[in-house]
């Protein structure tokens, strides 16, 4: 597999502010990569650097084998879908779609054929004469996608394209974007702050924070083996519980820093006596009979029908999920069992995941 997009030691400064720190990233042809992270983590800066809208301070960016560091956006042959869609308000849908082709002075017949085909792909054939202001949010979003598709570019860049849509439309468009990617087989880089979007759409997820890549990999790898506490807390919904703990003398259990100092079994052996943070996903905690597990008090129950999210009053707060509805009410006692296969252990200082000592 050849890399369609390759970033090597990319650094970006805004004055004294270090926005991108030594970014190394390789994106294979046809891959759908999601850049995800909290706001200000540098994911948009990275995308804009790929597009050529920002110049990087040092390092190298290659697109399809060509070094593009010093190329202006128009020479990079990438298409970008903006968060605000950035449709040209003074042009109708047809003109918006074909703007890039008209800039290249393609023959009229070719332009019209391409516009027709793309309009069908995105389901907007009947709206070609409309102006952006006459379209709904979802339709504008499609036009923005169409404007990218018609170019048949080396890569698609998406800058939070779904965040302006309402929740149900967002879920729908998520599938559509992914289906479109599968059909076109193009390389896509997708920036989002929504980890669910990243997890559901991408083949490869890059989690960023403060200008560095915290971890990258297949979505379920990130979920199952987060490299550090940040990734563990960022990926997965509801978010992972973290409890301070100390590894027992045997190295095969952790003593949680909770009232009664409960001991939970670990799968494998860890450095005895080490101060750690134990990560427990809400979906990996299960309710058991009154004589086993962690004894806790329920503080809040949020039920959505298919599942119930239950918070327990502990410091820090612990939450867990049960399928369907629950009889538990605020103030009830509950006992939780922990599956040792799903306990994540992080070093208390470095916050990095600790591997099993064999």
């Amino acid at each position, binding site marked *: 597999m050849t890399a369609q997009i390759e970033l090597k030691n990319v650094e970006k400064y805004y004055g004294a502010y270090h926005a991108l720190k030594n970014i190394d990233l390789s994106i294979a042809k046809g891959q759908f990569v999601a850049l995800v992270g909290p706001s200000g983590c540098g994911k948009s800066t990275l995308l804009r650097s790929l*597009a*050529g*809208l920002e110049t990087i301070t040092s390092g190298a960016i290659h697109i399809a084998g060509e070094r593009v560091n010093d190329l*202006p*956006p*128009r020479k990079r042959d*990438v*298409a*970008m879908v*903006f*968060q*605000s869609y*950035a*449709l*040209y*308000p*003074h042009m109708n849908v047809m003109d918006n779609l074909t*703007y*890039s082709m008209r*800039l*290249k002075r393609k023959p009229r017949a070719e332009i019209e054929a391409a516009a027709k085909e793309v309009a069908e792909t995105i389901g907007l054939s009947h709206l070609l004469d409309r102006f952006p202001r006459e379209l709904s949010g979802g339709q504008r979003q499609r036009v923005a996608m169409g*404007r990218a598709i018609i*170019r048949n570019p080396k890569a698609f*860049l998406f800058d939070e394209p779904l965040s302006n849509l309402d929740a149900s439309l967002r879920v729908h468009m998520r599938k559509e974007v992914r289906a479109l990617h599968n059909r076109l087989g193009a390389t896509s880089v997708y920036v989002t702050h929504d980890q669910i979007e990243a997890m559901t759409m991408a083949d490869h997820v890059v989690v960023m924070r403060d200008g560095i890549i915290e971890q990258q990999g297949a979505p379920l790898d990130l979920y199952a083996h987060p490299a550090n506490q940040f990734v563990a807390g960022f990926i997965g919904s509801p978010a992972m519980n973290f409890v301070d703990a100390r590894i027992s003398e045997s190295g095969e259990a952790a003593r949680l820093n909770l009232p009664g100092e409960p001991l939970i079994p670990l799968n494998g052996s860890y450095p005895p006596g080490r101060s750690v943070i134990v990560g427990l996903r809400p979906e990996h905690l299960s309710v058991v009979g009154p004589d086993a597990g962690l004894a806790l008090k329920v503080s809040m129950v949020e039920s959505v029908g298919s599942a119930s999210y239950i918070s327990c009053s502990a410091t820090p707060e612990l939450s867990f999920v049960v399928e369907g509805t629950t009889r538990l009410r605020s103030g009830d006692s509950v006992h939780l069992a922990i599956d040792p296969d799903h306990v994540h252990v992080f070093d208390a200082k470095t916050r990095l995941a600790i591997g099993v000592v064999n």
Partner: protein
Amino acid sequence: MSIAWTNRMLLLVALGLAALYLFPLYWMYVTSLKTGSEIFATPPGMFPASPQWSNFVYVWETRNMGRFLWNSTIIASGTMALTAILGTGCAYVLARYRNGWIDLALFLVLMLQVLPASLMITPIFVGFSQIGLLNYPQLAVILAVTAKAMPFFVVLVRATFMSVPGELEEAALVDGNSRIGAFWFIVLPLARNGILVSAILIFMQAFGEFVYSKSMIQASELQPASVGLNTFMGPNTTEWGNIMAYATIYVTPILAAFVLLQRRIVSGLTSGALK
């Protein structure tokens, strides 16, 4: 007092102030139609008894008004064109970049706006005469008025540019446009209204310009209508009917244009503020 009452009172006050403000304009129109004796009658009549339409024809012919108005048009058009060409680029840069230097530049631009023409005319006159610009007096006036009108234009058009989202430009860049192409084909069409309106306002301002023209243009065949009107009036003038007819001919086209374009002007001026 109820709210309806307050509103009615305020409306009355507003109407009163508007009447007070517009009264001179009304008086100009009325006087231009009065006979000589009517103008000096006490108490003055609010309406002309027998409208003297011949005043207009007489003034137009004897005062060579066609020439004067043509000169005014040349100066106003020249000023408008120069301001629009130079000011648009300036306003764009001031709108798109944000740093301390830009703030300083804006401050200086606004400073220029503060200086009155009657103060600036002496140094401008000396400077222009030294480089020989006074041999082309209309050009000299156009340059001086442009300098005077520029800050106003730049500040207005900057607001217009700021209302055009930067992402549109970026989309155009990624779509394959150059920086200049994106400005020319994406930003400029979207800022067109604001630029047009500002240019029209500059035209109107330059059309009525007096101080620079009076000082720099000696030859009467090159003078604009404002200076022509001034030479019409002397210490012993009694021809008020004719002078007002002159003023009417001079002012009415500008007024008509303003009334016709009023809605666009208001929306053009506020479009930057509301978005």
